[in-house]
């Protein structure tokens, strides 16, 4: 016999766990199914979370998982010029994310959500006005009935596709990512995240160094999905060439694809909502998504709880989630997608010229799409008309 819930959330990452917690807090019976055997791993993430997100989400940093304070960012040009940005907007923490996610799971469970691990959903279909999710638990087929499914099953999302929503992402909208967590290393700025740009270092993307302590960091790369060499090869080359890194140890290896564009205009269908990486809810410039997806989860949970109360989980009843999310976050991210395109068009010389002609504050304004930059770009890049054209086009 099948178990019954109001909502089955598929995926126990930050999106699914936050949604489960928020649903449970609103009195909704919710089951969260995680296909892997442990919440929080593997960590497919550089683990940075900005201060703004702690405020927006009402999360208090806990020293157990907020392991390193970050006070800004260092942007490095291909030739090694550094632009240092120390602002509250660029500040935050590097997390021990697997511990953070466990805390989220504990909170969700405490709020009344039921979480099961090692339970992949192998089929989902609409039945009798609800949805039946078929899972495989230790080789045994188990079915769960619910009024609706929330698909939070990541870049490899299959559940939304099983229910007829196309969530496939095109190669131009996805980055190929690879990362080592390194220990026993020495690097310049343990209180800044460092980003390295250039077509040799990270074509159509950037290489990052997110410190987790004085001698520990996540060192990784996200590069365009249409690359010639693997993401791993770029990280390996960088580590081998960097004096402070090359003698260090690699204690974790992570890979992942990062949806950096191609937002879904419609993230709902009858009995279905899609959140998180599955809905491509990631910042197109820096590729971070933890905060974005937890916020989306909270929005989705509120809409779903309301719809369930009214006994209507049709596409129309769930669709306010689209508008609310785009209003709060999606439209801003679409704007940032334009600056991503600007970044992708940059040659190595362009990076040097930008660093030579703009200060750190102006570089950040450029990234934010601040329209006051139009006049400045027009004035300062007269000698570089092609670069000026690229910048103005995407501002």
């Amino acid at each position: 016999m099948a178990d019954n819930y109001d909502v089955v959330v598929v995926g126990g990452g930050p999106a699914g766990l936050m949604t489960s917690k928020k649903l449970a807090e609103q009195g909704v019976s919710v089951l969260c199914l995680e296909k892997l055997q442990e919440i929080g791993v593997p960590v497919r993430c550089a683990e940075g979370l900005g201060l703004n997100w702690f405020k927006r989400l009402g999360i208090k940093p806990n020293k157990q998982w907020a392991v390193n304070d970050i006070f800004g960012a260092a942007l490095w040009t291909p030739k090694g010029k550094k632009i240092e940005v120390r602002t509250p907007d660029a500040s935050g923490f590097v997390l021990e994310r697997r511990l953070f996610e466990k805390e989220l799971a504990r909170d969700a469970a405490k709020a009344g959500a039921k979480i099961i691990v090692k339970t992949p959903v192998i089929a989902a279909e609409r039945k009798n006005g609800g949805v039946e999710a078929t899972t495989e638990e230790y080789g045994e087929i188990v079915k769960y009935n619910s009024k609706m499914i929330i698909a939070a099953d990541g870049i490899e999302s299959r559940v939304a596709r099983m229910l007829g929503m196309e969530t496939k992402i095109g190669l131009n909208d996805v980055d190929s990512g690879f990362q080592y967590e390194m220990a026993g290393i020495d690097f310049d700025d343990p209180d800044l995240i460092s980003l390295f740009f250039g077509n040799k270092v990270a074509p159509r993307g950037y290489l990052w160094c997110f410190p987790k302590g004085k001698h520990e960091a996540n060192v990784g790369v996200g590069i365009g999905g249409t690359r010639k060499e693997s993401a791993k090869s770029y990280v390996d080359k960088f580590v081998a060439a960097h004096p402070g890194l090359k003698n260090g140890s690699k204690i974790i290896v992570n890979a992942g694809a990062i949806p950096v564009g191609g937002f879904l205009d419609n993230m709902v269908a009858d009995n279905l909502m899609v959140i998180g990486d599955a809905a491509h809810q990631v910042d197109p410039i820096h590729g971070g998504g933890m905060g974005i997806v937890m916020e989306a989860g909270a929005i989705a949970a509120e809409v779903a709880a309301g719809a369930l109360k009214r006994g209507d989980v049709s596409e129309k009843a769930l669709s306010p989630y689209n508008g609310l999310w785009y209003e709060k976050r999606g439209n801003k991210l679409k704007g940032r997608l334009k600056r991503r395109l600007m970044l992708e068009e940059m040659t190595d010389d362009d990076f040097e010229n930008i660093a030579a002609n703009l200060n750190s504050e102006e570089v950040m304004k450029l990234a934010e799409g601040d329209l006051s930059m139009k006049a400045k770009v027009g004035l300062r890049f007269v000698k570089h008309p092609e670069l000026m054209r690229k910048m103005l086009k995407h501002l």
Partner: protein
Amino acid sequence: MIVNDPKKCCYCGGCVGVCPKAAITLKETRIEIDHEKCIECSSCVLICPVDAMKKVDGKGKGAKAGE
């Protein structure tokens, strides 16, 4: 035919996300390719961060990856 090298694979699921035909499934630590559905577009080969997906000669209808 597209094949997955389980010795290189880090089970990140990137290939699953870009597959236009939903022909790839990520099991816990195993990639399965449905060669009946696969159109050999090589999107998965391009996205793979560790070069674990490869296009090889031959048609493998019904064959499972890593076997």
